């Protein structure tokens, strides 16, 4: 019988994703990816899948940035871009397992969430400093040597915030419901006999 007694110690350590003392699951070897000898999340290790994943991921990430930037004129935008980008990581997890996922992350999901929120809040609140209403858009154009006239607008920043948060969400969920559960299953496998007896 699994007690759910919430035996949780306040302040014992981070919520599992604190960077310093990251608990197991995040102890990824800092090797080049796809060279880790870990079982992937599903089924046996598939070289084909890995290679396809490796080839696709940069393309997916680039595409997601494109969607983000072009969203104002074409279908796309922060949501779609963020979802596409996180697909890349999901693919990476499915292909390479949880250690792979951990190794490939630019920063912890909570960090992404906080950063995204800050960017969005900043964009939203900046006009207030000038006595304007919240979320008012401001834009300016400059002429860059290579790109020609580039228009920069604050809603782009806002969309980046959206992008970051969407990525943060998906990673967080994959980390929790995928990687974490996988790690647990491994632990559980060791203890299985005892637990079966208890049921």
């Amino acid at each position, binding site marked *: 019988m699994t007690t759910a007694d919430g035996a949780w110690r306040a302040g014992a350590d981070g919520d599992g994703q604190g960077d310093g003392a990251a608990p197991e699951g995040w102890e990824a070897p800092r090797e080049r990816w796809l060279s880790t000898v870990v079982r992937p999340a599903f089924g046996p290790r598939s070289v084909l899948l890995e290679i396809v994943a490796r080839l696709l991921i940069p393309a997916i990430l680039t595409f997601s940035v494109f969607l983000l930037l072009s969203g104002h004129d074409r279908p796309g935008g922060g949501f779609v871009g963020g979802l596409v980008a996180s697909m890349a990581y999901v693919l990476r997890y499915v292909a390479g397992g949880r250690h792979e996922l951990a190794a490939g992350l630019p920063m912890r999901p909570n960090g992404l969430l906080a950063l995204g929120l800050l960017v969005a809040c900043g964009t939203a609140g900046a006009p207030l400093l000038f006595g304007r209403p919240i979320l008012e858009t401001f834009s300016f154009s400059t002429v860059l040597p290579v790109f020609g006239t580039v228009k920069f607008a604050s809603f782009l920043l806002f969309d980046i915030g959206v992008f970051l948060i969407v990525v943060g969400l998906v990673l967080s969920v994959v980390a*929790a419901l995928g990687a974490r559960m996988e790690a647990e299953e491994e632990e559980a496998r060791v203890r299985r006999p005892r637990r079966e007896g208890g049921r």
Partner: protein
Amino acid sequence: MLIFALVLHAAFAVLLPPLVRVLGARVFFVASLPPALAVLWALSQAPRIVSGRPISASVAWVPALDISLDFRVDALALAMVVLVSGIGAAIFCYSVGYFHADERGIGRLASVMVLFSGAMLGVVTTDNLFALYVFWELTSVTSFLLIGHDDRKEQARRAALQALVTTVGTGLFMLVGFILLGGIGGTFRISELVADPPTDSPWLPVALVLILVGAFAKSAQAPLHFWLPAAMVAPTPISAYLHAATMVKGGVYLVARLAPGFADVDPWRALVLTVGLATMLVGGWRALRQDDLKLLLAYGTVSQLGFLIVLGGTGTQVAAAAMIGTLLAHGFFKSTLFLTVGVIDHQTGTRSIAALTGIGRRMPVLAGAGALAAASMAGLPPLIGFVGKEAALEAFLPGHVPAPSPAAAGVMLAGLVVGSILTFAYSARFVWGAFADKETVSERRFQSPSWAFVTAPVLLSAAGLLLGVAPQAADAVAQSYAAPLPVGDKPYHLALWHGFGPTLGLTALVIAAGALLFAARRTVEQAQKALARWPEAELGYHLFVHAIYAAALSVTRRLQSGSLSVYLGVILATMLALPGVRLVAALVNGDLRLPFGSEEFRIWDSPLEGVVAVVLIVATIAVAREHRRFPALIMLGALGFGVAGLFVLHGAPDLALTLILVETLTMIILVFVLRRLPSTFNVRPNGWTKRFTVLLCSAAGTFIAVTLWLMTDARTATPISGGFAERAEEVGGRNLVNVILVDFRALDTFGEIVVLATAAVAVASLVLLNRRSRVMEQNGAETPEENGAETEDAKEGTAGPRAGIGTKEILGNDLRPDGAHQPNEGGE
């Protein structure tokens, strides 16, 4: 000054508890300062007040609701202030001797008593109906706390709650009555209402009856009197102060306060006279058979309160004068008697008539004071009790006064005489029981009380004597109060001697019959026992409470099922019952018409749409019917992609794109979770429940779809989105959906990403956390830091799942101290 006195009471209530450590029981001396000050001030102002110039003060509180702390001290209030604060000060001094320094919660006690004193002062001086209610209920609450002072006794707790529920419950009636009365009269100032009473509203009798109910309960009128004898579990000073001298007079005061204005409104007089007289007789009769001196006095109090209600509510000048006299008399003699009993109880450890003997010999001073007070109660000259009773009998001599009608007055007179006889008898019985030598009883050993302890009863009984010998003071107050009332043949004054007349004869009759009744006390006791006992009034209370709890249980048992599906089903049913029924009614009546056959009606906009719709319908039904997890998941995926297809058809590429991505992610995550769960769902057997569920859900779904159809068909204005296209140029974006998301309505998006971020954090904390707890469990370890310190969740967690006790068992072992009880969130 009056306001200052009230504030002083409150301030002392706060200051007293810390002082206990220094002063011990002497803290009551300090506590007596505010009431002493109040009474001194009132006496100093007495000449002015009696001459008809009341003192007013006011503090605004909630003017918009007419709740205002207005004060007005007139003659009636003056008499009450003397009782409340004067007797209060004396009783506080008495308490110094009564309570030991190590008495439990003595600071709390003193504090609440001062608070009560202040509240009571407020009751009798306020001039606003709401303010009256405020102070009134404050006395109820403080009384509750004081009755329950000895809270380790079951009896005390019971009595306290009973008193509270009775007085506050009826107080609510009174509040409604006040609101009605103020609404009718257009003002909530009592003086204005009484001076210019409204007469024409049909609601006026209702208001008055409601107010009287509150007053009757507070003044322990039959059949609501049961709480008062029960309240005698409180320490004696409290009984003396609250339940004899002051609080219970609240009802009398209110009746007397309103009588000048409303005594002539039906059914005021009938109600007041009947209830008052009945109470007087019941109380007196019951007092005759009590063995406990305190209970004897309590029933005596009930009887006297009935008497006072009669006098106060009659609304004639003589009765009013009698009321003032009796009011003062009762305050002084009853508090004296209680304090006397307190001394006896304190010294001998008993207050049972059957166990007391020789007290008079051993405590002559106390016995003297007690006897004097009892004489006043019995209505013997030259005490104030006699003065009051003479006036009372005079008030109901047929023909002397215009109201009540002569026949009624005759009945009343007879009743009062019988009541007075009973009063005489139990007064005598009290004196005999408390002080007389009884051969059959063996004498107890006890110490004589200190002089300080006896001072208060002596002083109070002396005050009764003084007022009796010099009734002019009381008369002045009485005249001032009674002035606006209808006059009889000639003005009546409170005095010891009115010459020979019918009242004197009646008094003689009372004394003779009373003495006889006392002499035949054994016969009376046996007669009382032999009589079939009529149902105790308390039974009514218990029936009421039990009925309430039984109703509560049966309602809650039936409704609060604990099952989520039932809850949701009821919600759907409610949706069908409110807007659903409305819609159906409108359709049936023809107020609304479904767009069948109209120009707008069409099966689909394009055949492709039809195909997508069919896919949707099939996939949806399949999801609902599928009992295996993975097939259900696949159908859900199909459903999602079908919706995306519909989005494409309706010109929403952004949505389609987003939905496809979201669906894919959802599927992946679902697979993460699903692969751990059993491969099929547990399903309920087919049966009427299931059929009913299907019916309910279909009805709900149909309702929404039909509403949507009607709403879109009946669109009243062109959508505002036209504006977006015009303004998009300013923004410089061409994808309107995205422009809306990040610019026009960016605030929605902002909120939405907050939702996402929160959900992400929530998921992480939920899954990560559980792991840790499992690790803990595996090690069999409780959290280490809580060796001993009971933390908030520790008990819930440990006691929950492990203690697998059945419900029946828990009930049986309700209070088992070994922890077998199952607190808060018991497990399975």
